[in-house]
Protein backbone atom coordinates (compact mmCIF):
# COMPACT_ATOMS: atom_id res chain seq x y z
CA UNK A 1 0.00 0.00 0.00
CA UNK A 2 2.73 2.44 1.03
CA UNK A 3 4.71 1.68 -2.10
CA UNK A 4 1.63 2.41 -4.22
CA UNK A 5 1.38 5.94 -2.74
CA UNK A 6 5.07 6.35 -3.42
CA UNK A 7 4.58 5.48 -7.08
CA UNK A 8 1.67 7.86 -7.35
CA UNK A 9 3.61 10.71 -5.75
CA UNK A 10 6.55 9.99 -8.00
CA UNK A 11 4.31 9.94 -11.09
CA UNK A 12 2.79 13.28 -10.13
CA UNK A 13 6.21 14.73 -9.51
CA UNK A 14 7.38 13.65 -12.97
CA UNK A 15 4.20 15.09 -14.50
CA UNK A 16 4.68 18.31 -12.59
CA UNK A 17 8.28 18.57 -13.70
CA UNK A 18 7.34 17.91 -17.31
CA UNK A 19 4.50 20.43 -17.34
CA UNK A 20 6.07 22.98 -15.04
CA UNK A 21 9.25 23.08 -17.01
CA UNK A 22 7.37 23.66 -20.34
CA UNK A 23 9.46 26.34 -21.99
CA UNK A 24 7.93 29.51 -23.43
CA UNK A 25 8.25 29.54 -27.26
CA UNK A 26 10.52 32.60 -27.33
CA UNK A 27 12.45 31.47 -30.38
CA UNK A 28 9.25 30.84 -32.31
CA UNK A 29 7.94 34.22 -31.18
CA UNK A 30 11.08 36.02 -32.36
CA UNK A 31 10.95 34.16 -35.68
CA UNK A 32 7.30 35.15 -36.22
CA UNK A 33 8.01 38.78 -35.28
CA UNK A 34 10.95 38.88 -37.67
CA UNK A 35 8.87 37.39 -40.48
CA UNK A 36 6.29 40.16 -40.00
CA UNK A 37 8.99 42.83 -39.92
CA UNK A 38 10.43 41.42 -43.16
CA UNK A 39 7.01 41.52 -44.83
CA UNK A 40 6.53 45.11 -43.67
CA UNK A 41 9.98 46.11 -44.86
CA UNK A 42 9.02 44.71 -48.27
CA UNK A 43 6.05 47.10 -48.31
CA UNK A 44 3.23 44.88 -47.11
CA UNK A 45 1.52 47.69 -45.17
CA UNK A 46 1.16 49.63 -48.41
CA UNK A 47 0.46 46.90 -50.92
CA UNK A 48 -1.36 44.31 -48.75
CA UNK A 49 -2.65 46.31 -45.76
CA UNK A 50 -5.45 43.91 -44.76
CA UNK A 51 -3.15 40.91 -44.76
CA UNK A 52 -0.55 42.84 -42.72
CA UNK A 53 -3.14 43.82 -40.14
CA UNK A 54 -4.29 40.19 -39.91
CA UNK A 55 -0.70 39.09 -39.33
CA UNK A 56 -0.36 41.58 -36.50
CA UNK A 57 -3.60 40.37 -34.98
CA UNK A 58 -2.56 36.72 -35.27
CA UNK A 59 0.74 37.54 -33.57
CA UNK A 60 -1.10 39.34 -30.76
CA UNK A 61 -3.39 36.31 -30.34
CA UNK A 62 -0.37 34.01 -30.10
CA UNK A 63 1.18 36.31 -27.49
CA UNK A 64 -2.07 36.20 -25.52
CA UNK A 65 -1.99 32.41 -25.67
CA UNK A 66 1.57 32.44 -24.26
CA UNK A 67 0.44 34.75 -21.49
CA UNK A 68 -2.55 32.53 -20.74
CA UNK A 69 -0.39 29.44 -20.48
CA UNK A 70 2.22 31.20 -18.37
CA UNK A 71 -0.50 32.16 -15.88
CA UNK A 72 -1.91 28.62 -15.72
CA UNK A 73 -1.44 26.07 -12.95
CA UNK A 74 1.78 24.30 -13.79
CA UNK A 75 0.21 20.85 -14.32
CA UNK A 76 -2.09 22.11 -17.06
CA UNK A 77 0.41 24.46 -18.76
CA UNK A 78 1.14 23.77 -22.43
CA UNK A 79 2.61 25.98 -25.13
CA UNK A 80 1.78 23.63 -28.00
CA UNK A 81 -1.09 25.76 -29.26
CA UNK A 82 1.00 28.96 -29.03
CA UNK A 83 3.76 27.26 -31.00
CA UNK A 84 1.28 26.22 -33.68
CA UNK A 85 -0.10 29.75 -33.85
CA UNK A 86 3.37 31.27 -34.13
CA UNK A 87 4.37 28.80 -36.83
CA UNK A 88 1.22 29.76 -38.75
CA UNK A 89 2.03 33.48 -38.34
CA UNK A 90 5.53 32.90 -39.68
CA UNK A 91 4.27 30.92 -42.67
CA UNK A 92 1.58 33.52 -43.41
CA UNK A 93 4.06 36.40 -43.08
CA UNK A 94 6.37 34.72 -45.57
CA UNK A 95 3.43 34.27 -47.94
CA UNK A 96 2.50 37.94 -47.54
CA UNK A 97 6.08 38.96 -48.26
CA UNK A 98 5.97 36.93 -51.48
CA UNK A 99 2.58 38.46 -52.29
CA UNK A 100 3.98 41.96 -51.84
CA UNK A 101 6.63 41.28 -54.45
CA UNK A 102 3.93 40.15 -56.91
CA UNK A 103 1.70 43.12 -56.10
CA UNK A 104 4.59 45.54 -56.45
CA UNK A 105 5.53 44.05 -59.79
CA UNK A 106 1.95 44.39 -60.97
CA UNK A 107 1.77 48.02 -59.76
CA UNK A 108 5.09 48.77 -61.45
CA UNK A 109 3.88 47.22 -64.69
CA UNK A 110 0.67 49.28 -64.57
CA UNK A 111 2.52 52.51 -63.75
CA UNK A 112 5.03 51.96 -66.54
CA UNK A 113 2.32 51.10 -69.07
CA UNK A 114 0.44 54.27 -68.15
CA UNK A 115 3.67 56.29 -68.30
CA UNK A 116 4.28 54.96 -71.80
CA UNK A 117 0.70 55.79 -72.78
CA UNK A 118 1.14 59.35 -71.43
CA UNK A 119 4.38 59.77 -73.40
CA UNK A 120 2.69 58.51 -76.56
CA UNK A 121 -0.33 60.80 -76.05
CA UNK A 122 1.97 63.78 -75.54
CA UNK A 123 3.98 62.92 -78.63
CA UNK A 124 0.82 62.66 -80.71
CA UNK A 125 -0.54 65.95 -79.37
CA UNK A 126 2.75 67.73 -80.12
CA UNK A 127 2.81 66.33 -83.66
CA UNK A 128 -0.78 67.46 -84.22
CA UNK A 129 -0.05 70.90 -82.82
CA UNK A 130 2.81 71.30 -85.26
CA UNK A 131 0.36 70.99 -88.14
CA UNK A 132 -2.61 72.65 -86.42
CA UNK A 133 -4.74 74.81 -88.72
CA UNK A 134 -3.54 78.39 -88.45
CA UNK A 135 -6.89 79.84 -89.52
CA UNK A 136 -9.08 78.52 -86.78
CA UNK A 137 -6.44 77.95 -84.20
CA UNK A 138 -5.17 81.48 -84.00
CA UNK A 139 -1.69 82.03 -82.71
CA UNK A 140 -3.07 82.66 -79.23
CA UNK A 141 -4.89 79.33 -79.22
CA UNK A 142 -1.82 77.49 -80.42
CA UNK A 143 0.32 79.14 -77.78
CA UNK A 144 -2.24 78.21 -75.13
CA UNK A 145 -2.19 74.58 -76.22
CA UNK A 146 1.59 74.62 -76.37
CA UNK A 147 1.58 75.83 -72.78
CA UNK A 148 -0.82 73.00 -71.87
CA UNK A 149 1.49 70.40 -73.39
CA UNK A 150 4.50 72.01 -71.73
CA UNK A 151 2.79 71.63 -68.36
CA UNK A 152 2.10 67.97 -69.12
CA UNK A 153 5.70 67.48 -70.23
CA UNK A 154 6.98 69.18 -67.07
CA UNK A 155 5.23 66.53 -65.00
CA UNK A 156 6.73 63.51 -66.82
CA UNK A 157 10.13 63.44 -65.04
CA UNK A 158 8.29 63.35 -61.72
CA UNK A 159 6.46 60.20 -62.86
CA UNK A 160 9.81 58.57 -63.65
CA UNK A 161 11.18 59.62 -60.26
CA UNK A 162 8.17 58.13 -58.51
CA UNK A 163 8.64 54.86 -60.39
CA UNK A 164 12.30 54.81 -59.37
CA UNK A 165 11.27 55.42 -55.76
CA UNK A 166 8.82 52.49 -56.11
CA UNK A 167 5.88 54.82 -55.43
CA UNK A 168 3.90 53.15 -58.19
CA UNK A 169 0.40 54.10 -57.10
CA UNK A 170 1.06 57.86 -57.16
CA UNK A 171 3.03 57.45 -60.41
CA UNK A 172 0.03 55.69 -61.92
CA UNK A 173 -2.33 58.54 -60.95
CA UNK A 174 0.02 61.16 -62.37
CA UNK A 175 0.54 59.23 -65.61
CA UNK A 176 -3.21 58.73 -66.01
CA UNK A 177 -3.86 62.45 -65.51
CA UNK A 178 -1.07 63.39 -67.96
CA UNK A 179 -2.40 60.99 -70.58
CA UNK A 180 -5.96 62.33 -70.25
CA UNK A 181 -4.79 65.93 -70.57
CA UNK A 182 -2.56 65.27 -73.60
CA UNK A 183 -5.36 63.31 -75.25
CA UNK A 184 -7.73 66.20 -74.54
CA UNK A 185 -5.44 68.69 -76.29
CA UNK A 186 -4.98 66.29 -79.23
CA UNK A 187 -8.77 66.00 -79.54
CA UNK A 188 -9.16 69.79 -79.51
CA UNK A 189 -6.69 70.07 -82.38
CA UNK A 190 -8.38 67.24 -84.27
CA UNK A 191 -11.74 68.99 -83.89
CA UNK A 192 -10.26 72.23 -85.23
CA UNK A 193 -8.78 70.32 -88.16
CA UNK A 194 -12.13 68.71 -88.90
CA UNK A 195 -13.80 72.13 -88.90
CA UNK A 196 -11.24 73.52 -91.30
CA UNK A 197 -11.68 70.49 -93.56
CA UNK A 198 -15.44 71.00 -93.46
CA UNK A 199 -15.09 74.64 -94.46
CA UNK A 200 -12.83 73.81 -97.39
CA UNK A 201 -15.31 71.29 -98.87
Amino acid sequence: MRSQWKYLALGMLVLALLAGCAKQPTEELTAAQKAIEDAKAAGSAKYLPDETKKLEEALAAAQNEIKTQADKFFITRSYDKAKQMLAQVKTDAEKVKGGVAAKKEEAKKNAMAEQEAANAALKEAKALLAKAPKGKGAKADIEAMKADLKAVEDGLPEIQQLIEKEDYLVALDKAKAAKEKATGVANQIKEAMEKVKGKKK
Partner: protein
Amino acid sequence: MVLLTPRSKRNPKISLCLGFLLSLFLFGCSDPPLPPEAGEAEKMAFALWKAEASHFAPEEYRSFETTLQAIREDLIRERSRFPWFQEYEPIAQRLRSLLKQGEEILKKVEERKEAKRLETASRLRELEGRIQGLERWSFHLNEGRLARRSLTKASLTLKEAGFALDRGKFDEAASRIAAAQRHLASAEETLLPILNRFSDRRLLRRWKSWADEAVSESRDRGNVAIVVDKLARRLVLYKEGRSYKTFGIGIGRNGLADKLRAGDGATPEGLYRVIKKLPSSRYHKALLLNYPNEEDRREFQRLKKLGRLPKGVGIGGLIEIHGGGKDGMTYGCVSLEDRQMDELFHLVPVGTPVAIVGTVFSGAAIPLPGEKQSDD
Protein backbone atom coordinates in the same frame (compact mmCIF):
# COMPACT_ATOMS: atom_id res chain seq x y z
CA MET B 1 -1.34 1.04 -16.32
CA VAL B 2 0.74 -0.46 -13.54
CA LEU B 3 -1.55 1.26 -11.08
CA LEU B 4 -4.62 -0.43 -12.55
CA THR B 5 -3.54 -3.98 -11.81
CA PRO B 6 -5.97 -6.40 -10.24
CA ARG B 7 -4.02 -5.79 -7.01
CA SER B 8 -5.35 -2.24 -6.81
CA LYS B 9 -8.91 -3.45 -7.24
CA ARG B 10 -8.53 -5.11 -3.91
CA ASN B 11 -8.12 -1.75 -2.18
CA PRO B 12 -11.22 0.53 -2.64
CA LYS B 13 -9.39 3.67 -1.32
CA ILE B 14 -6.72 3.40 -3.98
CA SER B 15 -9.32 2.79 -6.68
CA LEU B 16 -11.23 5.87 -5.57
CA CYS B 17 -8.08 7.98 -5.63
CA LEU B 18 -7.09 6.74 -9.05
CA GLY B 19 -10.59 7.27 -10.38
CA PHE B 20 -10.53 10.83 -9.07
CA LEU B 21 -7.19 11.58 -10.67
CA LEU B 22 -8.29 10.04 -13.96
CA SER B 23 -11.47 12.14 -14.00
CA LEU B 24 -9.38 15.18 -13.23
CA PHE B 25 -7.19 14.62 -16.27
CA LEU B 26 -9.98 13.50 -18.58
CA PHE B 27 -12.49 16.24 -17.86
CA GLY B 28 -10.99 18.87 -15.66
CA CYS B 29 -7.92 19.62 -17.79
CA SER B 30 -9.65 20.53 -21.04
CA ASP B 31 -10.63 24.23 -21.26
CA PRO B 32 -14.24 25.03 -22.03
CA PRO B 33 -14.66 26.83 -25.40
CA LEU B 34 -14.37 30.62 -25.48
CA PRO B 35 -17.62 32.53 -26.03
CA PRO B 36 -18.23 33.01 -29.78
CA GLU B 37 -18.59 36.76 -29.16
CA ALA B 38 -14.81 36.91 -28.59
CA GLY B 39 -14.14 36.02 -32.23
CA GLU B 40 -16.89 38.37 -33.42
CA ALA B 41 -15.38 41.23 -31.41
CA GLU B 42 -12.01 40.63 -33.07
CA LYS B 43 -13.72 40.68 -36.47
CA MET B 44 -15.45 43.92 -35.51
CA ALA B 45 -12.10 45.43 -34.47
CA PHE B 46 -10.73 44.53 -37.91
CA ALA B 47 -13.77 46.00 -39.65
CA LEU B 48 -13.36 49.25 -37.69
CA TRP B 49 -9.67 49.42 -38.52
CA LYS B 50 -10.42 48.82 -42.21
CA ALA B 51 -13.11 51.49 -42.17
CA GLU B 52 -10.50 53.93 -40.78
CA ALA B 53 -12.48 54.47 -37.60
CA SER B 54 -9.31 55.80 -35.95
CA HIS B 55 -9.55 58.72 -38.41
CA PHE B 56 -13.30 59.25 -38.69
CA ALA B 57 -14.38 58.48 -35.11
CA PRO B 58 -11.11 58.63 -33.12
CA GLU B 59 -12.56 58.95 -29.63
CA GLU B 60 -15.16 56.24 -30.11
CA TYR B 61 -12.58 53.94 -31.68
CA ARG B 62 -10.13 54.53 -28.82
CA SER B 63 -12.85 53.67 -26.32
CA PHE B 64 -13.70 50.48 -28.27
CA GLU B 65 -10.05 49.42 -28.39
CA THR B 66 -9.51 50.13 -24.69
CA THR B 67 -12.56 48.06 -23.73
CA LEU B 68 -11.58 45.23 -26.06
CA GLN B 69 -8.06 45.17 -24.64
CA ALA B 70 -9.44 44.97 -21.10
CA ILE B 71 -11.70 42.09 -22.14
CA ARG B 72 -8.77 40.32 -23.81
CA GLU B 73 -6.85 40.54 -20.54
CA ASP B 74 -9.84 39.26 -18.59
CA LEU B 75 -10.12 36.37 -21.04
CA ILE B 76 -6.47 35.52 -20.46
CA ARG B 77 -7.05 35.65 -16.72
CA GLU B 78 -10.15 33.49 -16.98
CA ARG B 79 -8.48 30.94 -19.23
CA SER B 80 -5.53 30.77 -16.83
CA ARG B 81 -7.81 29.52 -14.08
CA PHE B 82 -8.38 25.88 -13.43
CA PRO B 83 -10.91 24.73 -16.04
CA TRP B 84 -13.51 23.91 -13.44
CA PHE B 85 -13.61 27.51 -12.29
CA GLN B 86 -13.63 29.25 -15.68
CA GLU B 87 -16.75 31.40 -16.11
CA TYR B 88 -17.27 33.25 -19.39
CA GLU B 89 -20.83 34.53 -19.20
CA PRO B 90 -19.97 37.93 -17.64
CA ILE B 91 -17.29 38.41 -20.32
CA ALA B 92 -19.71 37.30 -23.05
CA GLN B 93 -22.16 39.94 -21.84
CA ARG B 94 -19.51 42.65 -22.02
CA LEU B 95 -18.52 41.43 -25.48
CA ARG B 96 -22.13 41.65 -26.70
CA SER B 97 -22.32 45.21 -25.45
CA LEU B 98 -18.99 45.98 -27.14
CA LEU B 99 -20.21 44.51 -30.41
CA LYS B 100 -23.24 46.79 -30.28
CA GLN B 101 -20.93 49.74 -29.63
CA GLY B 102 -18.77 48.64 -32.61
CA GLU B 103 -21.79 48.54 -34.91
CA GLU B 104 -22.74 52.05 -33.86
CA ILE B 105 -19.19 53.30 -34.49
CA LEU B 106 -19.16 51.60 -37.89
CA LYS B 107 -22.42 53.33 -38.80
CA LYS B 108 -21.06 56.68 -37.63
CA VAL B 109 -17.84 56.15 -39.58
CA GLU B 110 -19.78 55.37 -42.76
CA GLU B 111 -21.90 58.48 -42.31
CA ARG B 112 -18.88 60.70 -41.69
CA LYS B 113 -17.05 59.15 -44.64
CA GLU B 114 -19.98 59.79 -46.94
CA ALA B 115 -20.18 63.39 -45.74
CA LYS B 116 -16.43 63.77 -46.32
CA ARG B 117 -16.73 62.18 -49.77
CA LEU B 118 -19.55 64.54 -50.74
CA GLU B 119 -17.69 67.56 -49.36
CA THR B 120 -14.49 66.62 -51.22
CA ALA B 121 -16.39 65.88 -54.43
CA SER B 122 -18.15 69.23 -54.18
CA ARG B 123 -14.82 71.01 -53.62
CA LEU B 124 -13.44 69.18 -56.65
CA ARG B 125 -16.39 70.23 -58.81
CA GLU B 126 -16.10 73.83 -57.65
CA LEU B 127 -12.40 73.97 -58.52
CA GLU B 128 -13.03 72.21 -61.85
CA GLY B 129 -15.61 74.88 -62.63
CA ARG B 130 -13.17 77.65 -61.80
CA ILE B 131 -10.44 76.02 -63.90
CA GLN B 132 -12.77 75.47 -66.84
CA GLY B 133 -14.01 79.06 -66.63
CA LEU B 134 -10.48 80.42 -66.68
CA GLU B 135 -9.49 78.00 -69.45
CA ARG B 136 -12.35 79.31 -71.60
CA TRP B 137 -11.30 82.88 -70.93
CA SER B 138 -7.67 82.11 -71.53
CA PHE B 139 -8.58 81.13 -75.09
CA HIS B 140 -10.15 84.56 -75.62
CA LEU B 141 -7.23 86.44 -74.14
CA ASN B 142 -3.87 86.70 -75.80
CA GLU B 143 -2.50 86.76 -72.27
CA GLY B 144 -4.15 83.40 -71.67
CA ARG B 145 -0.97 81.55 -72.57
CA LEU B 146 0.70 83.08 -69.50
CA ALA B 147 -1.78 81.32 -67.25
CA ARG B 148 -2.22 78.09 -69.19
CA ARG B 149 0.69 76.24 -67.62
CA SER B 150 -0.56 76.95 -64.13
CA LEU B 151 -4.10 76.11 -65.18
CA THR B 152 -3.00 72.82 -66.72
CA LYS B 153 -0.99 71.95 -63.64
CA ALA B 154 -4.08 72.73 -61.53
CA SER B 155 -6.19 70.57 -63.80
CA LEU B 156 -3.71 67.65 -63.68
CA THR B 157 -3.44 67.80 -59.90
CA LEU B 158 -7.20 67.95 -59.61
CA LYS B 159 -7.54 64.84 -61.77
CA GLU B 160 -5.12 63.06 -59.42
CA ALA B 161 -7.28 64.22 -56.50
CA GLY B 162 -10.27 62.65 -58.26
CA PHE B 163 -8.45 59.32 -58.59
CA ALA B 164 -7.53 59.42 -54.89
CA LEU B 165 -11.16 60.19 -54.02
CA ASP B 166 -12.34 57.22 -56.11
CA ARG B 167 -10.07 55.03 -53.99
CA GLY B 168 -11.56 56.52 -50.82
CA LYS B 169 -8.25 58.20 -49.92
CA PHE B 170 -9.64 61.44 -48.58
CA ASP B 171 -6.43 62.81 -47.08
CA GLU B 172 -4.54 62.17 -50.30
CA ALA B 173 -7.35 63.85 -52.26
CA ALA B 174 -7.32 66.82 -49.87
CA SER B 175 -3.58 67.36 -50.21
CA ARG B 176 -3.85 67.26 -54.01
CA ILE B 177 -6.78 69.66 -53.94
CA ALA B 178 -4.61 72.03 -51.91
CA ALA B 179 -1.84 71.73 -54.51
CA ALA B 180 -4.35 72.35 -57.31
CA GLN B 181 -5.54 75.46 -55.48
CA ARG B 182 -1.99 76.82 -55.39
CA HIS B 183 -1.63 76.38 -59.17
CA LEU B 184 -5.07 77.90 -59.70
CA ALA B 185 -4.20 80.91 -57.54
CA SER B 186 -1.13 81.49 -59.69
CA ALA B 187 -3.27 81.38 -62.86
CA GLU B 188 -5.84 83.71 -61.32
CA GLU B 189 -3.11 86.15 -60.37
CA THR B 190 -2.29 86.43 -64.06
CA LEU B 191 -5.78 86.44 -65.51
CA LEU B 192 -8.04 88.12 -62.98
CA PRO B 193 -6.47 91.60 -63.18
CA ILE B 194 -7.18 91.48 -66.93
CA LEU B 195 -10.67 90.06 -66.56
CA ASN B 196 -11.49 92.41 -63.69
CA ARG B 197 -11.00 95.37 -66.02
CA PHE B 198 -13.95 94.13 -68.04
CA SER B 199 -16.17 94.12 -64.98
CA ASP B 200 -15.16 97.63 -63.93
CA ARG B 201 -18.23 99.83 -64.44
CA ARG B 202 -16.19 103.05 -64.37
CA LEU B 203 -13.88 101.76 -67.10
CA LEU B 204 -16.80 100.46 -69.15
CA ARG B 205 -18.41 103.93 -69.04
CA ARG B 206 -15.12 105.54 -70.07
CA TRP B 207 -14.72 103.20 -73.03
CA LYS B 208 -18.30 103.89 -74.08
CA SER B 209 -17.73 107.65 -73.90
CA TRP B 210 -14.74 107.40 -76.24
CA ALA B 211 -16.67 105.26 -78.71
CA ASP B 212 -19.67 107.65 -78.52
CA GLU B 213 -17.42 110.65 -79.09
CA ALA B 214 -15.87 109.11 -82.23
CA VAL B 215 -19.26 108.07 -83.62
CA SER B 216 -20.80 111.50 -82.81
CA GLU B 217 -18.01 113.22 -84.69
CA SER B 218 -18.65 110.95 -87.68
CA ARG B 219 -22.36 111.79 -87.54
CA ASP B 220 -21.87 115.53 -86.96
CA ARG B 221 -19.22 116.04 -89.60
CA GLY B 222 -20.47 113.44 -92.06
CA ASN B 223 -17.18 111.60 -92.15
CA VAL B 224 -15.89 108.19 -91.02
CA ALA B 225 -14.80 106.99 -87.56
CA ILE B 226 -13.29 103.76 -86.27
CA VAL B 227 -14.13 101.91 -83.07
CA VAL B 228 -11.80 99.06 -82.10
CA ASP B 229 -13.23 96.61 -79.53
CA LYS B 230 -10.30 94.63 -78.16
CA LEU B 231 -12.31 91.97 -76.35
CA ALA B 232 -14.69 91.36 -79.24
CA ARG B 233 -11.71 91.45 -81.64
CA ARG B 234 -13.69 93.72 -83.90
CA LEU B 235 -13.01 96.93 -85.79
CA VAL B 236 -16.16 98.80 -86.80
CA LEU B 237 -16.02 101.52 -89.41
CA TYR B 238 -18.71 104.17 -88.98
CA LYS B 239 -19.88 106.34 -91.84
CA GLU B 240 -21.98 109.43 -90.98
CA GLY B 241 -22.57 108.01 -87.50
CA ARG B 242 -23.75 104.60 -88.71
CA SER B 243 -22.00 101.28 -88.63
CA TYR B 244 -20.74 100.70 -92.15
CA LYS B 245 -18.23 97.85 -92.12
CA THR B 246 -16.97 95.40 -89.50
CA PHE B 247 -13.63 93.60 -89.63
CA GLY B 248 -12.07 90.90 -87.47
CA ILE B 249 -8.79 91.98 -85.90
CA GLY B 250 -5.69 90.80 -84.07
CA ILE B 251 -4.24 92.76 -81.17
CA GLY B 252 -1.08 92.88 -79.08
CA ARG B 253 0.51 89.93 -77.40
CA ASN B 254 -0.78 91.36 -74.13
CA GLY B 255 -3.41 93.24 -76.05
CA LEU B 256 -6.21 93.30 -73.51
CA ALA B 257 -4.13 95.34 -71.09
CA ASP B 258 -3.91 99.10 -71.54
CA LYS B 259 -0.60 100.15 -73.02
CA LEU B 260 1.58 101.88 -70.42
CA ARG B 261 5.07 101.72 -71.88
CA ALA B 262 7.25 100.59 -74.77
CA GLY B 263 7.59 96.84 -75.15
CA ASP B 264 4.67 95.80 -72.95
CA GLY B 265 2.89 94.16 -75.90
CA ALA B 266 -0.36 95.90 -74.89
CA THR B 267 -2.73 97.67 -77.27
CA PRO B 268 -3.44 101.25 -76.11
CA GLU B 269 -6.90 102.41 -75.08
CA GLY B 270 -8.06 105.92 -75.83
CA LEU B 271 -9.38 108.31 -78.43
CA TYR B 272 -6.84 108.69 -81.22
CA ARG B 273 -6.60 109.93 -84.78
CA VAL B 274 -5.08 108.62 -87.98
CA ILE B 275 -2.07 110.86 -88.50
CA LYS B 276 -0.48 109.16 -91.48
CA LYS B 277 -1.37 106.66 -94.17
CA LEU B 278 1.42 104.27 -95.15
CA PRO B 279 0.59 102.60 -98.47
CA SER B 280 3.68 100.42 -98.24
CA SER B 281 4.39 99.08 -94.80
CA ARG B 282 6.15 96.07 -93.32
CA TYR B 283 2.65 94.73 -92.70
CA HIS B 284 1.10 95.41 -96.09
CA LYS B 285 -0.52 98.85 -95.54
CA ALA B 286 -0.84 100.87 -92.33
CA LEU B 287 -2.72 103.74 -90.70
CA LEU B 288 -0.44 105.38 -88.13
CA LEU B 289 -2.19 106.65 -84.96
CA ASN B 290 -1.22 109.53 -82.67
CA TYR B 291 -0.30 107.27 -79.76
CA PRO B 292 0.77 108.49 -77.22
CA ASN B 293 -1.88 111.20 -76.84
CA GLU B 294 -1.92 113.75 -74.00
CA GLU B 295 -3.78 111.48 -71.66
CA ASP B 296 -1.31 108.61 -72.31
CA ARG B 297 1.62 110.93 -71.52
CA ARG B 298 0.03 112.10 -68.26
CA GLU B 299 -0.63 108.53 -67.17
CA PHE B 300 2.92 107.53 -68.11
CA GLN B 301 4.40 110.36 -66.00
CA ARG B 302 2.12 109.56 -63.07
CA LEU B 303 3.11 105.88 -63.05
CA LYS B 304 6.75 106.74 -63.45
CA LYS B 305 6.60 109.06 -60.43
CA LEU B 306 4.95 106.28 -58.45
CA GLY B 307 7.79 103.97 -59.47
CA ARG B 308 5.43 101.53 -61.14
CA LEU B 309 7.38 101.51 -64.40
CA PRO B 310 10.88 100.14 -64.98
CA LYS B 311 13.61 102.76 -64.97
CA GLY B 312 14.73 104.08 -68.35
CA VAL B 313 11.72 102.72 -70.19
CA GLY B 314 9.98 104.90 -72.79
CA ILE B 315 6.30 105.36 -73.49
CA GLY B 316 6.55 103.68 -76.90
CA GLY B 317 4.93 104.68 -80.17
CA LEU B 318 4.27 103.72 -83.77
CA ILE B 319 0.91 102.22 -83.01
CA GLU B 320 -0.81 101.38 -86.28
CA ILE B 321 -3.78 99.67 -87.80
CA HIS B 322 -2.08 97.45 -90.35
CA GLY B 323 -2.37 94.34 -92.49
CA GLY B 324 -0.50 91.09 -91.98
CA GLY B 325 -3.45 88.98 -90.86
CA LYS B 326 -5.71 88.94 -87.83
CA ASP B 327 -4.55 85.62 -86.39
CA GLY B 328 -1.10 86.78 -85.41
CA MET B 329 -0.21 88.60 -82.23
CA THR B 330 1.24 92.10 -82.59
CA TYR B 331 3.48 94.27 -80.41
CA GLY B 332 0.45 96.44 -79.62
CA CYS B 333 -0.90 97.37 -83.06
CA VAL B 334 -4.26 96.38 -84.51
CA SER B 335 -3.95 93.97 -87.42
CA LEU B 336 -6.36 92.97 -90.19
CA GLU B 337 -6.32 90.58 -93.11
CA ASP B 338 -4.54 92.25 -96.06
CA ARG B 339 -7.64 92.24 -98.26
CA GLN B 340 -9.67 94.01 -95.56
CA MET B 341 -6.81 96.40 -94.86
CA ASP B 342 -6.95 97.40 -98.54
CA GLU B 343 -10.63 98.21 -98.14
CA LEU B 344 -10.18 100.14 -94.89
CA PHE B 345 -7.14 102.00 -96.20
CA HIS B 346 -9.20 103.18 -99.14
CA LEU B 347 -12.10 104.44 -96.95
CA VAL B 348 -10.17 106.16 -94.15
CA PRO B 349 -8.58 109.59 -94.55
CA VAL B 350 -5.94 111.19 -92.31
CA GLY B 351 -7.64 112.79 -89.25
CA THR B 352 -10.20 110.00 -88.80
CA PRO B 353 -11.07 109.51 -85.12
CA VAL B 354 -10.17 106.08 -83.76
CA ALA B 355 -11.55 104.93 -80.39
CA ILE B 356 -9.71 101.91 -79.07
CA VAL B 357 -11.58 100.41 -76.14
CA GLY B 358 -11.54 97.32 -73.96
CA THR B 359 -15.06 96.54 -75.01
CA VAL B 360 -18.33 98.14 -76.00
CA PHE B 361 -19.78 95.40 -78.17
CA SER B 362 -19.42 92.48 -75.76
CA GLY B 363 -22.43 93.55 -73.74
CA ALA B 364 -22.27 94.85 -70.22
CA ALA B 365 -19.81 93.87 -67.56
CA ILE B 366 -18.21 90.48 -67.98
CA PRO B 367 -19.07 88.06 -65.24
CA LEU B 368 -15.89 86.54 -63.95
CA PRO B 369 -15.61 82.77 -64.13
CA GLY B 370 -17.90 81.30 -61.51
CA GLU B 371 -19.45 84.70 -60.71
CA LYS B 372 -22.96 85.97 -61.25
CA GLN B 373 -23.45 89.19 -63.13
CA SER B 374 -24.59 91.98 -60.86
CA ASP B 375 -27.80 93.86 -61.62
CA ASP B 376 -26.62 97.43 -61.14
